[in-house]
């Protein structure tokens, strides 16, 4: 089975851009990725566009603008993991030999304010049960009970990620914050304060996947590549998507009830286990991680679900400083969603863009020295969890 490489990445900054359409942002990211991969028209044989709220034919609008249509273009939605799902589909098609080169991109322009998810039924909304951050808070509360996490730990995650984000030119928030200020920000849902929650926003990211066997101009058979100095390729070790198993009341599928049973594995654990197996590595091999920090507690929970630490040890890993830049397993060197904000369809691919730069060694100030194995993790509505493993 063919191995899959990432031949190019591109990004449109994450933030708020009143004068730019979702199509404009997508074009910027796609052009960046195609340029890195040296591709022109005909250079890719299929396209997957991740978006949750972009509307019908979002991918087509982007590719129509630059005259690159004709191939299959599929819009893909898997909540926060939409980009991971698109990557899985693109990589799967290359592994199967269906295509040499696939364009995978994500676009989003989230509505402002609390998102009215189409996920809740009217009676849930009317009852006040459609309060998305409250579910995050219930999960945080359980983590405090089960793993010894305190509000100080939650604040320290925000401080770390915002410090990382200062050097990410594509992040929405690029200023440091201290723990006192985090805890002084408005209380949204105890124990979560405003600055502990990521901001839904806008942006785009794109990745060119190509079969490892193909030359620098992977699409050249179709007349689709141009010459030039190309960045080093990164190997896609795994791209796995999993949904929730029934039973957990606090998994991201937001059931109204669940079992008093702690043994149901989380979707992130299902995805990580499969991804480690597919890539032939374990969590101990990871040099750098981007994970879902929808809220500060979600990042700590991910440490446990991804196996970065044993169950119940998230607080200890946090105190150790292991997950800060300079620590033994830096998490969210990009600044995470807490710095970047979260454009749903683009966020998982934004993580991949960051990690490709890490593995190429051109991540600048936030470079993790000698990074060779990286993991990107997203989880959200559905529930959907995706885990992507990259190596060089």
């Amino acid at each position, binding site marked *: 089975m063919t191995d899959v490489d990432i031949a190019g990445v591109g990004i449109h900054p994450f933030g708020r851009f009143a004068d730019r359409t979702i199509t404009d942002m997508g074009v910027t990211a796609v052009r960046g990725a195609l340029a890195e991969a040296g591709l022109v028209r005909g250079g890719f044989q299929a396209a997957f566009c991740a978006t949750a709220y972009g509307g019908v034919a979002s991918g087509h609008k982007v590719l129509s603008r630059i005259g690159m249509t004709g191939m299959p273009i599929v819009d893909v939605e898997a909540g926060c993991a939409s980009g991971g799902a698109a990557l899985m589909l693109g990589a799967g098609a290359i592994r199967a030999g269906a295509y040499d080169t696939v364009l995978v991109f994500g676009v989003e322009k989230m509505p402002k304010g*609390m*998102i*009215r*998810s189409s996920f*809740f039924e*009217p*009676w849930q*909304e*009317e*009852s*006040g*049960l*459609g*309060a*998305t951050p*409250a579910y995050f*808070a*219930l*999960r945080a*509360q*359980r983590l405090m*009970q089960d793993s010894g996490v305190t509000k100080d730990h939650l604040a320290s995650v925000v401080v770390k990620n915002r410090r990382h984000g200062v050097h990410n030119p594509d992040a929405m928030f690029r200023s440091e914050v201290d723990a006192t200020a985090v805890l002084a920000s408005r*209380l*949204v*849902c*105890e*124990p*979560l304060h405003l600055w502990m929650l990521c901001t839904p926003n806008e942006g785009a990211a794109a990745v060119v996947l190509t079969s490892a066997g193909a030359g620098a101009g992977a699409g050249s058979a179709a007349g689709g590549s141009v010459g030039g100095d190309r960045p080093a390729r990164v190997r896609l070790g795994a791209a796995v998507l999993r949904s929730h198993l*029934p*039973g957990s*009341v*606090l998994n991201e599928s*937001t*059931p*109204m*009830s*669940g*079992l*008093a*049973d702690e043994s149901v594995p989380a979707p992130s654990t299902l995805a990580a286990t499969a991804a480690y197996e597919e890539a032939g590595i374990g969590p101990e091999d990871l040099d750098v991680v981007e994970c879902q920090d929808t809220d500060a507690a979600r990042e700590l929970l991910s440490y446990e679900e991804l196996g970065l630490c044993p169950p119940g040890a998230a607080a200890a890993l946090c105190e150790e400083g292991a997950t800060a830049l300079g620590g033994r397993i830096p998490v969210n060197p990009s600044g995470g969603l807490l710095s970047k904000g979260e454009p749903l369809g683009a966020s998982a691919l934004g993580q991949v863009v960051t990690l490709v730069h890490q593995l190429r060694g051109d991540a600048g100030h936030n470079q993790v020295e000698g990074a060779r194995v990286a993991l990107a993790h997203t989880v959200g509505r559905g529930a959907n969890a995706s885990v992507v493993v990259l190596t060089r």
Partner: protein
Amino acid sequence: MAHRETAPDGGATGVAVSVREGLFTDTDPPRLLGSRCQACGRHHFPRHDTCPYCTAEGALPVELSGTGVLWSWTTVTIAPPGYGGDVPYGFGVVELPEGLRVVTRLTETDPSRLSAGQRMAMVVVPVRVDDDGHRVVTYAFAPQDPR
């Protein structure tokens, strides 16, 4: 379902209408309406014919226990989309003796007055008045012995 208001914090005037048919009884005290799977014996809420855990069909309708213990909690301070009632309100998960954890409103809005394992009882609370002047009600849990 139209029944007399049974919420402890609401005056018993006017007709009360449930946010959704089939969520809870209009008895006093009220009970949540769940199902028990005949194949695996586990409970779920709200009612559905199919067991979400083992996929068996033909789950039996049951009334769930009216009391349980608090498993997780918070307070909602900003009205979420589609909600027309007051804020703040309590929000949490209560574990029932059936081995079921239920997402619910809580009548207690101060999280510092709540703790894990605390005993809670199911109640019916108003969320808003509809265009016909009826009080729209939903289910909630209240501390059984407030500290």
